[in-house]
């Protein structure tokens, strides 16, 4: 079961039980809905932009598995205060790691993302780990700085 403990580390269990920023935002600037047809995972993600367009606040609501929920929760913490450009770069870094393309350790400021590295051995679960991230990118793409149309 050691590999299972690696996949379901304390931090994942903790974030899935007590997800951070699990809430609706007042007057979000961006929003998107993500759906994983395999699992039935569903996530609604909202973003507020601050000055200079940084992501000043991110909230989400999800009916989802532990990996998806924890990943959304840690996303909100990790990207808060980041610029759109930085957010996209971190998404790419995260995506390459959980799909096993990149094996380098994360820089220290992204160390929290390390807990999802084990996912790469579970192809059917990679989508769970990335759903929140894809949803964020969709929100950024669709709105491109404009207010959400949703």
């Amino acid at each position, binding site marked *: *079961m050691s590999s*299972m403990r690696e996949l*379901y580390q304390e931090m994942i*269990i903790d974030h899935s*039980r007590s997800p951070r920023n699990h809430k609706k935002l007042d007057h979000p600037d961006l929003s998107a809905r993500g759906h994983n047809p395999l*699992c039935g995972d*569903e996530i609604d993600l909202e973003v507020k932009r601050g000055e200079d367009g940084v992501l000043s606040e991110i909230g989400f609501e999800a009916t989802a598995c532990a990996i998806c929920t924890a990943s959304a929760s840690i996303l909100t913490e990790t990207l808060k205060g980041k610029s759109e450009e930085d957010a996209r770069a971190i998404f790419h870094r995260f995506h390459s790691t959980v799909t096993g393309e990149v094996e380098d350790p994360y820089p220290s400021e992204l160390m929290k993302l390390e807990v999802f590295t084990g996912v790469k051995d579970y192809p059917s*679960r990679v989508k*769970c780990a990335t759903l929140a991230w894809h949803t964020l990118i969709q929100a950024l793409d669709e709105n491109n700085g404009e207010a959400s149309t949703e």
Partner: protein
Amino acid sequence: MNAGDPMSLNVHEIQKHFPGLNQQVHGHRLVYLDSAATTQKPVAVMEAVDSVYRQDCANVHRGVHTLSERATARFEGVRKVVAGFLGISDSREVIFTRGVTESMNLLANTLCHLDSGFQPGDEILISSLDHHANIVPWQLISEKMGTVLKVIPCDDAGELILSDLDQWISEKTRVVSVGHVSNAIGTVNDIDTIFAEARKVGAITILDAAQSAPHMSISPKEIDCDFLTFSGHKTYGPTGAGVLWGKKELLDRMPPWQGGGDMIRTVSFEESSFAETPWKFEAGTPDIAAVIGLGAALEFLDSMGRDKVCSHETRLLQKIESALKSMDGVNVVGEPSLRACCVSFTLDGVHPHDAATIMDQNGVAIRAGHHCAMPLMKRLGLPATIRASVGMHNDEADVEALLESVEAVREIFA
């Protein structure tokens, strides 16, 4: 297992027929509890398929040469095997499709033109326990024809509510199509009551036997329905071949669905005339190897004794159900009075997909999800369940492994 009891299966012997079981998953013995998705295949089926390609590799029906004659004889011979399996006398009532999904699409798209056709306001009745394969084709046709889809509701135990059936079945009802056994929670539906009411108003009756064919004897004559369909790949056969049985008198009057070679009598650019039942409904080159493999599968299933298989599986399901019920934080979904196929459950505080990953890590293959029965899941207020479904090869050791893997999930999420 009472290996000596003539009424009980010799499961140990049965397991030898299934090479797919003989493997390790993540360092554990594979415990396959996902037969409702697709069954493992016995060697006899693999050998039948292989022998088609090695010895009788030819197209059917149109050839005079030896290989084609042999392939045709084997292919057409399977109609007789299916007729025997279903206890019907006329093998021309047997149509080969890819499976239940294709059968239902064929029915929806041809019954809507039978006789005077579907009229706006005509009703089609399905059930709230049904698989998407018995929902979406009727939705699509209803959009086109203006028919109205009605649904027999179910109670919290996961049983269809049949006390006020006359509310759902009326003179407007053209088709009553229901599943025999729920693939999501294992309810065996009281189809006799439903079809008796349907017959009173002259509705066409269709049975989705996808989850009953592998588990019990099914006889369209006793059930007294107009059509019955099952998927070969869930009945120990290859992927690619399933059966649609229908009353010849109806099939003869139905228009064809797909057009192409083999289903025609004559073709000119002005007009084509169609072959007889069942070939009228089998356009193009069929899945010859899969159909021949299906014949081997049904013979295999019959040779095991379908009653024995049924009582063996029922015993296992009862064990699983009562063991799960005795565990803390485990919720068995539904409490049908008659159960086949599977037990569905949830674990407090654990999403079914997380459970599935951890159970797989212990070698236990179960399914987590909506089981293509989203409306039922919504009715039960669940996004997903964990489903353990059984086949003839499962035994007490598999039940033990299942329960241990559930414990392992609970430990991680403790």
